[in-house]
């Protein structure tokens, strides 16, 4: 039986409001429509998992929340995405400002080719923090929150790329935490690192979610069941057709009593 973390905090917290509301979202790569008709509310202070087979558009959807897709020429978004009630695709919204509030962790750990310290200080420096004591404090606090401080406090001037894969990923998490986002997007953050490190990152997500809204894309259903409070299942039924969100709900329910037949088929391993 899978352990479902949502049960633990069932009555401990007050009802959670929607942090992100998506309404009728369509997404296009040029002429190709990748996503259609997605409407969903993502709750604050929790972990939402996006699951589904490869190529079902879950990463594409994730990148809509910090407008990372803007970097790919020819992409287009229809519909609305509200973050804290504010339309992030409205004219006048600067994606650069948005990305401070919506941090992102990638599949491949991507430390910058600079020291551990400079990696974490990069974001704060971008946004105008220059005083050394202040930076020192942010670096220490962020590494601590990422559960990496003990391992690196003696070697801060060393290159970020000298760390192990799992440590690199936690360094990237610290780097994001340093700019104090209230949403963190994680695009298959554990698929390129070893199992022990995966455990550390999952524990970390559990600690962070009290303050940060986390959305994780994962191929690993056990991981989705372990770490998330809500789960969304995506599916592209036919090649060339846009993908859609088949089902969304509390993780416990999605994994034990899915409403849609297709969700059940996927979860029980009949395809994907």
């Amino acid at each position: 039986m899978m352990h479902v973390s949502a049960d633990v905090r069932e009555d401990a917290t007050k009802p959670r409001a929607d942090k992100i509301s998506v309404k009728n979202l369509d997404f296009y790569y040029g002429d190709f429509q990748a996503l259609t008709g997605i409407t969903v509310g993502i709750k604050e202070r929790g972990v939402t998992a996006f699951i589904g087979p490869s190529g079902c558009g879950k990463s594409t959807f994730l990148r809509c929340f910090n407008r990372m897709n803007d970097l790919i020429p020819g992409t287009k978004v229809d519909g609305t995405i509200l973050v804290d009630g504010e339309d992030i695709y409205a004219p006048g919204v600067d994606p650069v400002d948005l990305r401070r509030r919506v941090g992102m962790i990638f599949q491949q750990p991507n430390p910058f080719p600079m020291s551990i310290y400079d990696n974490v200080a990069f974001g704060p420096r971008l946004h105008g923090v220059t005083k050394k004591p202040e930076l020192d404090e942010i670096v220490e606090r962020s590494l601590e929150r990422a559960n990496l401080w003990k391992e690196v406090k003696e070697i801060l001037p060393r290159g970020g790329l000298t760390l192990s894969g799992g440590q690199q990923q936690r360094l990237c998490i610290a780097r994001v935490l340093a700019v104090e986002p209230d949403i963190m997007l994680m695009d298959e953050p554990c698929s390129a690192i070893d199992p022990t490190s995966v455990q550390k990152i999952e524990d970390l997500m559990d600690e962070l979610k009290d303050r940060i809204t986390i959305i994780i894309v994962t191929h690993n259903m056990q991981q989705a069941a372990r770490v998330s409070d809500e789960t969304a299942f995506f599916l592209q039924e036919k090649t060339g057709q846009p993908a859609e969100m088949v089902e969304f709900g509390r993780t416990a329910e999605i994994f034990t009593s899915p409403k849609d037949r297709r969700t059940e088929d996927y979860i029980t391993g009949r395809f994907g």
Partner: protein
Amino acid sequence: MNKRIANRLALSVLWLCAGTTVAVLGAVIIYVFVNGIGQLSPEFIFTWPQGVNAEGGIWPTIVSTLYVTGLAMLIVTPIGVLAAVFLAEYAVQGRLVRIIRFAADSLASVPSIIMGLFGLALFVETMHIGFSMISAALALSFLMLPIVMRTTEEAIRAVPKYIRWGSYGLGASKWQTVSRIVIPAAMPRILTGLILATGRAVGETAVVIFTMGQAINLPISPLDSGRPMTVHLYMLAMEGINLPAAYGTALLLMIMILFFNLTARWLLRRNRRMQG
């Protein structure tokens, strides 16, 4: 059977060709070394030429070469690097960029003597700068520009996408990402290109003979004329006045260029190790 013979034959031919390349390089280096080593001495390097400039040392020509090369680097580095940054990061990839790239590649294949002639016409005469370090440096920078642009562009393109994403993901603007992440990450390879271009400039003769003049002179201001090592070598050898000194100059020149090339290789390898 037939297949085996063909295989052996092909392998021998390939070995022979590869061997020839190494042998030619080896022959040139050994020849110059054997003939030039007897000349090399502190006096030869650090004193002025004597008599009809055929005896004595070659100090002013070394200074002229280093001076003009340094000056050319100062000109070509910002222009070449920024042009490459623009092409790789900002320009909309399309017809215009293809034309610019083609122009840069064509510039690289212009014979250097034509570049020298052009430098003579434009800088020395039309602009009335005269034979000088700056005229030669400007003409040389035309020659170096395509090398610097090409290597820089490749260096920038080689910076992995996901590193840029990391920067954008933290709320960095395009320029912040380019200036703080992409260019520093590409720096070792950019430096390699710059050093290779420097090697090219040090060994260049045709361009400088037209633009720097030939007078033995220790240049101080960029408007001073001078005689670089390559031109000195040419005079010593072609006028047959002091062949041993020509070999000595040649050896020194080769050592300098070898030094630049080895530095470039070392930088690249060190960088590869750091990222691997």
